């Protein structure tokens, strides 16, 4: 290959390649990593491989900048975890962390330089309203004003609407199971809660196998492919870490997924980790997981879709069909999540809302007005004097 177009995937697979990149290659890598939310992760890799002093300074400024932001998030997350654990301890409940915050609290290297947008926690369904009340009294309030959104979350999703802390501004997602109750697969949250693991006093994460299965389920059923590459990298990191450090991990992984009725997403996770990042997975485990494999025809179609959708979201990585592939995966993930009669109104409503937004603002929803130069998110507390 004279021109490497997929710098990001290559260096994620083999970080030692970072040393060989030319400046123009860095010039493509940095925007790819920025789009995939992986700039900070990239810097963590640079640090882990002791490359700070040998790599060119200009691109490293970008990775460093994102890394500093992720370091700040770690501190903030630790503080939020402390506050949440106080709140749940007052109810005699464990604080069970999911996803990014769980990786941070478990000290996993995959959390190094990773950004997260909110904190996810798991509580027993019967305690949901008690937890919500306690959180409310401690300043966490619903961030969804729209009554439809509120109902959608409560009736059909596995979460209550996202909460936002009134003074600290942090976002919190409270889950009572790891898939919506209307989904095709029905993992039993009680089984998952029975296996949680304490990482600090009163603070828990899922067990290593459950953490991997949950991460797989999240990526391959929730339709959240915007950060597909980051999520597959999480899986890669989790598999590497637990495969090395957790006795009996590989042995338990597939049977547990079968027990939880989640062997399909686990199959995809293992399959695509190996395909995209060359993850080292024992052949026996791969073979075992094939019971979650779709039929051969479907399997070929899925390969095409996933491989496209998981590429970094950047024009230098686009192949024809990428947009369509992403959309099909989105529809598929909604199909797996909700009965069809419900799916249609929801998708059309989403589309309709978007159209209205387009009409009034003439743009997509993620844009802002040109910002006033303004100090952002600085937290001052003045002492009453």
């Amino acid at each position, binding site marked *: 290959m004279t021109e490497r177009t997929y710098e990001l995937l290559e260096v994620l697979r083999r970080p030692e390649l970072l040393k060989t990149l*030319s*400046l*123009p290659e*860095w*010039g493509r890598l940095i*925007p790819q990593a*920025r*789009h995939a939310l992986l700039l900070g992760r990239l810097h963590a890799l640079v640090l882990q491989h002791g490359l700070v002093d040998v790599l*060119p300074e*200009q*691109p490293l*400024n*970008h990775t*460093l*900048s*994102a890394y*500093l*932001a992720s*370091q*700040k998030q770690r*501190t903030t997350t630790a503080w939020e975890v402390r506050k949440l654990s106080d709140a749940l301890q007052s109810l005699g409940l464990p604080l069970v962390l999911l996803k990014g915050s769980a990786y941070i609290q478990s000290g996993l290297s995959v959390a190094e330089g990773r950004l997260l947008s909110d904190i996810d926690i798991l509580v027993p369904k019967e305690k949901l309203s008690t937890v919500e009340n306690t959180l409310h009294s401690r300043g966490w309030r619903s961030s969804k004003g729209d009554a439809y959104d509120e109902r959608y979350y409560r009736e059909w999703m596995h979460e209550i609407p996202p909460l936002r802390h009134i003074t600290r501004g942090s976002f919190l997602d409270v889950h009572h199971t790891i898939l919506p109750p209307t989904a095709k697969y029905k993992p039993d949250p009680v089984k998952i809660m029975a296996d949680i693991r304490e990482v600090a006093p009163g603070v828990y994460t899922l067990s290593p196998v459950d953490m991997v299965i949950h991460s797989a389920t999240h990526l391959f059923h929730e339709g959240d492919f915007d950060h597909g590459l980051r999520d597959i990298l999480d899986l890669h990191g989790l598999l590497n870490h637990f495969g090395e450090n957790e006795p009996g991990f590989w042995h338990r992984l597939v049977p547990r997924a079968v027990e939880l009725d989640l062997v399909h997403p686990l199959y995809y996770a293992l399959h695509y980790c190996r395909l995209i990042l060359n993850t080292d997975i024992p052949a026996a485990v791969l073979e075992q997981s094939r019971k979650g494999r779709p039929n051969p025809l479907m399997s070929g179609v899925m390969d095409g879709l996933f491989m496209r959708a998981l590429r970094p979201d*950047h*024009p230098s990585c686009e192949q024809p069909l990428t947009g369509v592939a992403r959309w099909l995966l989105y529809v598929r993930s909604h199909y797996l999540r909700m009965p069809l009669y419900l799916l249609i109104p929801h998708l059309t409503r989403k589309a309709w809302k978007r159209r209205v937004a387009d009409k009034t*603002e*003439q*743009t*997509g929803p993620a*844009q*802002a*007005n*040109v*910002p*006033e*130069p*303004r*100090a*952002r*998110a*600085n*937290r*001052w507390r*003045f002492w009453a004097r």
Partner: protein
Amino acid sequence: MMTRISELDLIQLQSQLKGVGLYLKTGPFSYRIRSSVPAIAEGLHLLYGDSAFYPQMDFVDFDIRLDAPSRLRRYFRPKLDFYFDHQTPFKPLPLTQAYAFLEWGMNWCISVHMNQYLKLHAAVLEKNGRALVMPAAPGSGKSTLCAALMLRGWRLLSDEHALISLDDNKLIPVCRPISLKNRSIKVISQFDSSAVFGPLCEDTHKGNVVHMKPDEQSVALDHQPVTPGWLVFPKYIPGADTRLTERIKETAFLKAGDQSFNYSLLGAEGFEVMSRLIEACDCYNFSYSNLDEAVETFDKLSETAA
């Protein structure tokens, strides 16, 4: 021998902007700018003439483009999109605001992406080897004062960003045009007829906006950091007397922090760097209405440079 952007004629610059783009280095950052909008070419030609022209660069920090979203819109509702890395972080703006949109977008690139400095929203100038840092909210007369000081021989480091090195606390220059609004435009053109202005953008969300060219000397020294000297909080008050009053340091800390883009993000390091800045500076409040008196006051202050 270095070629300057002013050595290109407008047509050449336009074709550069329409083609591979104009590569621009300002302070520690590099941009690649592409646009087919004539006002963008005119503005860059007028205001960045003293900057070096690079036929190409191996790596750019910020790849930006300003163009109409679609062919159709060009005729119906002439609006512009700002693309950063092929994405559009802002709502489109009318074509008449093109040049201001470019400068605002360039500022945004720095304020959201570069956290390896402590960044304040502030004007920074230098005299006698010391930096004058003036953090201020919009509307405080910071840019007017900054323009006047530059026109009277102070070296401009930035009208918008104080970049403070985390290693040695020095102010890093990022010398770009000064943004003037509404009444200040006339005030400055009357203050000094040698001031060079870019395209006027009318009726923006900030009113009328025009950018003023930095002087040749400031652009030439755009790579030399400066030791901090004075931290001054300016306030334009119509009809007010010129007053420079000392300010106690801990409130200066809080007020400067309030104008920071990333103080919180830097955590304990932000606190340390800000403390060192405050300790290194004499801190003042400054209120003024007369620009000549203001310049005189700062010239006197500059004589206190150690």
